[in-house]
């Protein structure tokens, strides 16, 4: 195998991608204290996969994050969100009224549980949809030729 012309890009992105993923999770789980939440974290996680696809090729990215997983993921996140709503309905509250999720009202545990659950739903859907749109486009795009770099 000949030396890749983008050695620096490969090395740097290999180092960066784990940090991007950790930062994405930080933004997600720190959303109650600082700016951020499921939407932003989802885009950051997706961008880690997209960076991997840009540098190492779309096929390698499809092996790491298979399209079947992505396809199931974006439905699963939306279902989790709506599911929390229906759970609160079944527990006797209003739609998405998280207070009924947990009896400990003085510490607002139900609210916190509800917010964490729906944010996970947002995270999963946004991450998977962003990756799916990229896969759909990238599947039709020829490899970026040298003159376009």
């Amino acid at each position, binding site marked *: 195998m000949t030396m890749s012309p983008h050695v620096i890009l490969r090395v740097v992105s290999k180092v960066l991608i784990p940090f991007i993923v950790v930062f994405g999770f930080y933004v997600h789980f720190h959303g109650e204290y600082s700016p951020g939440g499921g939407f932003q974290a989802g885009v950051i996680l997706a961008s880690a996969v997209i960076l991997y696809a840009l540098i190492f090729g779309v096929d390698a990215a499809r092996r790491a994050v298979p399209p079947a997983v992505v396809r199931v993921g974006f439905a699963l996140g939306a279902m989790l969100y709506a599911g929390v709503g229906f759970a609160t309905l079944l527990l006797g509250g209003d739609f998405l009224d998280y207070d009924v999720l947990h009896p400990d009202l003085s510490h607002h545990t139900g609210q916190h549980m509800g917010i964490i659950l729906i944010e996970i739903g947002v995270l999963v859907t946004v991450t998977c949809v962003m990756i*799916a749109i990229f896969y759909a486009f990238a599947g039709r795009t020829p490899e970026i030729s040298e003159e376009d770099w």
Partner: protein
Amino acid sequence: MIQTVDLTQYFDYVFMAMLLSVGIAVVRLRSLFAAVMLTGVYSLLSAVWFVSLDAVDVAFTEAAVGAGISTVLLLGAMLLTSRECNPVPASRHWAALAVVVVAGALLFYALGDMPVYGDPNSPANAYVGMEYMTMTVDDIAIPNVVTAVLSSYRGFDTMGEVFVVFAAGLGVALLLGLGGAAGKRED
């Protein structure tokens, strides 16, 4: 009497001037690659401007979605389009200019009704917004009011947003496919 001058407004003017010049550059450029990259720069500049306006959550989203994902998707779209096109006749330029001038004039006309920036009595700050600020501590007990509004008070709206994103993904997957399973079956 010491008059306090809000210096951040000058930053805002600088950012708006930069946005305007990047916008003009995007229109004038003939290289698609440079134009796509400059739209990313435009998003990044507006994100910085939003930070200066204290809208950090919006800035974060703009930086991640506008400067990040959109730029990548535009690059993908750029590689699929042709590199040449027929010149647009001058008459259409004038029509476009007329639309832009009329829309711009209407926006400036409406500007008179806008509250002053940072006005505590503006509708956005006075009614339900202030209620959320005071009630979040008692209702939900998390420090970030934006998260409280997004996911609890207005959880139903956010669910709608998630379903919009879901519908976008579904539409793209149905129209273009994800390019995974189809290739596998053929081998």
